[in-house]
Structures are given as structure tokens and as C-alpha cells.
């Protein structure tokens, strides 16, 4: 009870000291500079090259219009359909990659024998960019949905597995020794020492994994696939509906940011000990 109160107070304190510092004001100066550069270069000064770009007002009018010119705004169900489909693909791929990658990484780090068998093969396949798999994925999996999910999964899977393995290798040997000393069996040591000990790396891996998932999702959706945010961007380009390109990009950035924040929150929730250590030592 008091614990949550203390956390609350700490948050309030941080917010108030953040507001007192110049940080938020500088941040808005920065945003203002970026947006006004966009506005002036395209609409007012009409700089060469820039004048072909969709303008700030055009994009935002379209985005917030109840009756959008190109048919996509926050009021159209179509917009949410694209978002929903992209999110669903990310969810499938990310969950599958986590469900397979974390256990595999844990066992690779834990068992030297397994590592000696699997790791060279893993390292052999890893340098191939995920996006080079696109045609092969289309050949191997039927339909347009599975190839895109497979690509997204592949990118996440490599990141998660590798980081989890590094996480296990990073655990100080004294922890497992202490566990053995206290009478833990090999399996108990795995559950109580290896899994939580690797947790910080696992979550770093998941953070990277969600990033690369969006990265390859966009590529997959642009090349093949129907619906989705990458698809919006690509078709808007082909149909010369340029303001939609920007709407697609902003939406992607937004959801990319939110999903990675969610992963971070999940990590904080599962690693209370780190949060509390950092809260004590933090400035």
C-alpha cells in the first residue's frame, strides 16, 4: 500500500521537476522548428524539390477531415482497418517470436552442448537480411498474409533469441553457484537463477525485436500484401495521393512508439527489483 503511494509521489515529484526545468520548453521549440521548417519550405518559400512534397496543412486537413479527399482520415473506418491489420500482424509475429525465441535463447545459453550444435547454424543464417527473404517467403507460404507475418516473425526471432542467449551468458557464475550450494537442482537453478538473471537482456531484446518487427512489417506490406500501414504508403505513392503517405508514416511512428513503450512497461512490471534499485540510485 505505502509502496504504491511512494511510487506515486516519486512520479509526481519527477513531473514537477521536469516542468520546472527548461526541458519541456526546449522540446516544444524543437517541435516548432521542425514543423515550421516543413510549413515554410513547402508552402511559403516553395523551395525547389520541397514544393512537390505534401504540405503541412494539406496533411493535417486530410488527416482530421470528416470527409477526406483521398478517403482516409481519423473519421473513416478504413483507416482503423489498416491500423488493426498491421497491429494484428505485429501481434502474431511478436508473440510467436517471443514464445519461441526466449526459450530457445535460454536453452542455448544454458546448455553448452545445444549451443555448439545450433549456434553456428544460427550465425550462418543471421547475416542474410530479413528482407531478402521476401520472395522466398512468398514462394514458401501461400496467400498474402502468412509471408508478411513470417518476415516480421523472422526479424523479431533473431533479435530475441540472440539477446536472451547473451543474457544467460552475462549472469555472474556466482549466482548459479550460490543456488547449487543452497541445494537447488539444475532445473531449479534454471528457473530461479537463469530465467530472472537473463530478464534484463531479454527485455532489451524484446525492445529491439518490436522495432525490427515494424521495420520488416512495413517492407513486407509494401512489397506484398493487402491492407496495413505499409500498404497505405505504397499505394498512396502509386495513386499519387501524397498526403496519405505522410499520414501513413506518422501513424506508423505513433504505433511504433506506443508498442515499444508497452514492452518497456511490461519489463518494468516484471523486473520490480531493477525499478526499485534505479529509483534509489537515480537522479
Amino acid at each position, binding site marked *: 500500500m505505502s509502496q504504491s503511494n511512494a511510487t506515486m509521489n516519486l512520479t509526481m515529484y519527477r513531473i514537477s521537476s521536469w516542468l520546472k526545468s527548461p526541458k519541456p520548453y526546449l522540446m516544444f521549440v524543437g517541435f516548432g522548428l521542425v514543423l515550421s521548417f516543413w510549413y515554410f519550405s513547402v508552402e511559403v518559400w516553395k523551395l525547389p524539390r520541397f514544393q512537390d512534397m505534401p504540405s503541412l496543412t494539406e496533411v493535417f486537413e486530410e488527416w482530421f477531415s470528416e470527409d477526406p479527399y483521398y478517403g482516409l482520415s481519423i473519421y473513416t473506418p478504413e483507416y482503423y482497418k489498416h491500423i488493426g491489420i498491421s497491429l494484428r500482424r505485429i501481434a502474431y509475429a511478436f508473440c510467436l517470436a517471443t514464445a519461441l525465441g526466449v526459450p530457445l535463447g535460454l536453452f542455448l545459453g544454458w546448455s553448452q552442448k545445444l549451443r555448439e550444435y545450433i549456434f553456428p547454424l544460427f550465425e550462418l543464417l543471421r547475416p542474410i537480411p530479413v528482407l531478402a527473404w521476401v520472395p522466398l517467403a512468398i514462394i514458401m507460404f501461400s496467400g498474402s498474409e502468412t509471408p508478411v507475418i513470417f518476415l516480421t516473425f523472422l526479424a523479431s526471432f533473431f533479435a530475441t533469441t540472440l539477446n536472451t542467449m547473451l543474457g544467460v551468458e552475462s549472469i*555472474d557464475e*556466482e*549466482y548459479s*553457484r*550460490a*543456488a*547449487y*550450494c*543452497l*541445494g*537447488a*537442482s539444475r532445473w*531449479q537453478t534454471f528457473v*530461479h*537463477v537463469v530465467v*530472472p*538473471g537473463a*530478464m534484463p537482456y531479454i527485455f532489451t531484446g524484446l525492445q529491439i525485436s518490436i522495432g525490427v518487427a515494424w521495420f520488416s512489417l512495413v517492407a513486407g506490406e509494401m512489397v506484398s500484401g493487402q491492407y496495413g500501414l505499409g500498404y497505405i504508403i505504397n499505394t498512396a505513392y502509386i495513386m499519387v495521393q501524397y498526403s496519405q503517405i505522410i499520414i501513413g508514416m506518422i501513424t506508423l511512428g505513433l504505433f511504433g512508439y506506443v508498442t515499444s513503450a508497452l514492452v518497456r512497461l511490461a519489463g518494468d512490471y516484471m*523486473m*520490480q*527489483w*531493477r525499478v*526499485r*534499485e534505479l529509483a*534509489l540510485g537515480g537522479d
Partner: protein
Amino acid sequence: MSTLPKDDSMPIKGAIRIEDVVKVYDPDGAAVMAVDHCSIDIPAGEICMIVGPSGCGKTTLLNTIAGFHGLTSGHIYLDDEVLCGPGKEKAEPGSDRIVVFQNGALFPWKTNLDNIAFGPMMEGKLSKDEIYEKARKMMVDAGLEGTEDSFPGEVSSGLRRRVEIVRALMNEPKVLLFDEPYRALDSLTKSVMHEALLDIYYKNKVTIFFITHDLEEAIFLGHRLIIMSSRPCKPKKIVEVDIPHPRDYSVLTSPRFREIMNEAKGVVNEEARKAFEAGEKEG
């Protein structure tokens, strides 16, 4: 020969006999002798201080008793039972011999209480309620009440050390193996920790195998000092500390303490110089 009192207060179990132990490391084909024909006899209930310069091979000895390393030749017995020797390459790590590590190996992801309950929980002989009741009681006895639900990272390093010793005692071990546990503490905290350790020892008589390079610590705590020669490690001189237990900090200023100190110091300094010069040659 020992200064141990011959009365009922001493445990019957926990005698360690190290017999003609040799340990040779063989990294990159260059054989390095870490322990050379070393024999030490530790009666049950003795606080035996192993003193020697850094990197002399003391920790190797401790690791073979704990079961983290194997031996090259020789025997180690616990109560006349072979822990390791020819035919039994490595001792089985077990909760009859618990190590308190140099850098501390409390699991940072478990609360202090969970850390203390870890050993019995792994053994699973008692019910969870019984274990936690015992753990809470032991924490109160050791002056640790109020820190049960904190994570190790949230309390001072001195407190952490005490939690770790309590954790080790929860399994009712016959032997505690200390690997320079107070190395990282400042000298003021150290003196508090010494008294706390003795306090715990008087309540739970166990055999203590304590590695240190701090002479004052060694004489204050130990029944006996075994001063080791630097690489390869073998006993060079045994110093009996005939100051009666229970001791407190007034012992430090007693003339007898000074005498023992002077007796030991010459030998230790000579070994430290040898180790230092050997280190220079290697580098």
C-alpha cells in the same frame, strides 16, 4: 593443538580434512600449479582463517571444497566421508557446505525474505509456511526486521552481507565457506560485521572456513590462522589465537592481540612481497 574449547557447546559434525591436495590448472597447455600438496585439518566448530596474498590459490581450495572445481590429486573429507578424491573427481555442491561469496551472491531479483527462504524451498522438506516462519524468525534474530520485503539492491552492503549469512544458515549447514566476504566494505562497517558474525556464530555453532587477506580480521575472528604461501598455495605457518571466545572489540587493543599480530605479520609480508614480485614478472 587447537584452542577450541573441549565441551558440549561444540558441534560433533563438520570436521574438514584436506589431505595432500594438489590442483594444477592447464590453460593453453601451460600447467599452473595453484595448490601444492596442501594438508589442513579443521575440527568441527572451528573458525579457521586462511590468510594469504591475493591470487595465491586460496579461492581454488575453497572451490574444491564447495564442489565447483575438481582436484588433481589428494583427498578432501567431511566428517570422514570422502568429498572428493581419486575416483570422485568433483565434490557434489550441497547445502551442508555453503559459500558466502566475495562479491555477494544474493539474488537481486528476490526480496531479502525470499532469498533467505530459497535454500529450504529448494529442498522442499518443509512446508512453505514453516519455511517462511523460520526465515522471519531468523531475520529478527539477526536484527534484519523491516527489510524483509526490500530487494537486496535497496539495502546497504553491510545489511546485504548479513542477509547472505542468514541465508546460508537457513539450511543448517555443517560448514560455512567465506570467500573474503568483507573485502568491499569500509573498515567501520567491517568491524560491525565482525561482531555480528561472531554473534551469529555463538548462536549457531558451525565450522567456518574463512578466506581473507586482512590480518586484523583474521586474528579477531579466528581460533586459528593458516598462513598460506603464495602460488603454489600451501600452508606456511599456523598461528593459534589463544584469546578466548566470546570476543568483542576490546580484544583488538589487548597486548596478546598485538603479540599474535607481530608473530603473523612478518610471514604474511614476506609472502605478499613474493606474490607482488611474481606478478611483476608475469606482467
